């Protein structure tokens, strides 16, 4: 998923949200999905500091040096290197047809797109997919486990850790010489810029925003969109709120 799409997703989701708010030290209630919240918040704050004082200035320089066209080529190159991992996980999840499409995409972009620098497959409307071993484990029935924030890597969960390790072994980028790997890190952070800026701009509590959106987004990817109508829509509204209809009718928007 490229940065523009991520921006759209987050901006549409968080369109009504607010900005960061300082903690007054009131005790936090334990969230069932996030029993390690206190530690996670500490790591989140550390990551945020590293991003603000190290990653963000470096990436600003990277974006300034690299012309847009070249930056786009770098993104295409690294997206193409993710394809073998996707194809493998397509197979492990029993998505033979999608594996075929992804293989075709990889072949076209590698051979006709100068090693993936040009996304030729997109001109042929061949859809881009992203599958990883965490999703495969989920499809196999492995529970997600508790939410975690990893130092430097960000939002995660117990199941994601073995997933990341397997994916790292399957990604050609990890076997490249270190300057290529470094370029990959710059590219990934650069692509996340719009989304990270947006979160900082609108979130009331960026930590909670990140956690909630990450967990829902991963469920959406794993269930191929099926989670939407089951888990997210109804929110026990009927029984709780119907009795308050009258009260809400009396309260005005006041605009």
């Amino acid at each position, binding site marked *: 998923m490229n940065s523009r799409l991520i921006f759209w*997703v987050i901006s549409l*989701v968080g369109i*009504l949200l607010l*900005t960061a708010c300082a*903690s007054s030290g009131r005790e936090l209630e334990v969230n069932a999905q996030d029993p390690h919240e206190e530690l996670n918040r500490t790591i989140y704050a550390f990551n945020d500091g590293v991003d603000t004082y190290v990653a963000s200035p470096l990436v600003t320089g990277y974006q300034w040096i690299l012309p847009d066209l070249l930056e786009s080529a770098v993104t295409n190159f690294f997206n193409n290197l993710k394809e073998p991992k996707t194809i493998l996980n397509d197979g492990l999840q029993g998505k033979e047809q999608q594996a075929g499409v992804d293989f075709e995409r990889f072949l076209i972009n590698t051979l006709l797109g100068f090693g993936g620098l040009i996304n030729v497959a997109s001109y042929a409307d061949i859809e881009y997919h992203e599958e990883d071993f965490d999703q495969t484990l989920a499809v196999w029935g492995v529970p997600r486990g508790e939410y975690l924030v990893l130092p430097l890597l960000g939002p995660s969960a117990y199941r994601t850790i073995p997933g990341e390790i397997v994916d790292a072994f399957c990604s050609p980028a990890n076997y490249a010489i270190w300057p290529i790997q470094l370029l990959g890190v710059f590219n990934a952070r650069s692509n996340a810029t719009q989304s990270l800026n947006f979160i900082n701009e609108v979130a*009331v509590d960026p930590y909670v925003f990140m956690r*909630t959106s990450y967990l829902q987004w991963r469920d959406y990817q794993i269930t191929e969109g099926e989670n939407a109508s089951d888990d997210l*829509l109804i929110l026990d509204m009927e029984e709780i709120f119907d009795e308050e209809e009258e009260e809400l009718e009396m309260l005005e928007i006041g605009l």
Partner: protein
Amino acid sequence: MMLLTKMITAFFLLFLSQLAAAEEVAETEIASQVVQGFQSELLHVMQQGEKLNFDQRFEQLKPVVIKTHDLAKITRIIVSKEWKKLTKEQKQELIQKFSTLSIASYAHYFKSFSGESFKIESVKQLSPGQIYVHTFLVLPDDKDVSMDYLLKKTGHGWRIINIITNGVSDLALKRSEYVSVIRKSGFDALITEISAKIKKFSQ
């Protein structure tokens, strides 16, 4: 005679079920029109781009957001159990601030157009009072973004109460954030932050 009674009963039941199905179709049609109306106005504002300033976009979007969203109910849901702890004045203030912020957010972010469009994919009735409209935001050079709307029937017709973008529920996201802030920092801190955000969006 017995056979005739059974036939009449069967015919009557069939008639009733068809009537119910027709009513459901009519309701889903009305609900999808609400979504369509909102998306059309959003696109209209985007298409006017920089010709409109923030205040003009706000004024243009205000009626359609109020008409298509149940802002009072959304506000009620996103503060969850904290709602019962608020005074009537606080509830009123929160609804007013949240409604302003909602419109201001749309006015701030939807100010340019580069060929985007919306398409309604499907509509289904989840329960007599709830309809789910599945749409896509079509981006000219990118993958479509899935945008689902949950509408609830109110005394004023069908109103949007949740938007789910690529599987991420706006209502669930807000609820987790707002509750967290109220519990950690209190109601006044939330209002202060909302006010600051409205001001920032308007600049």
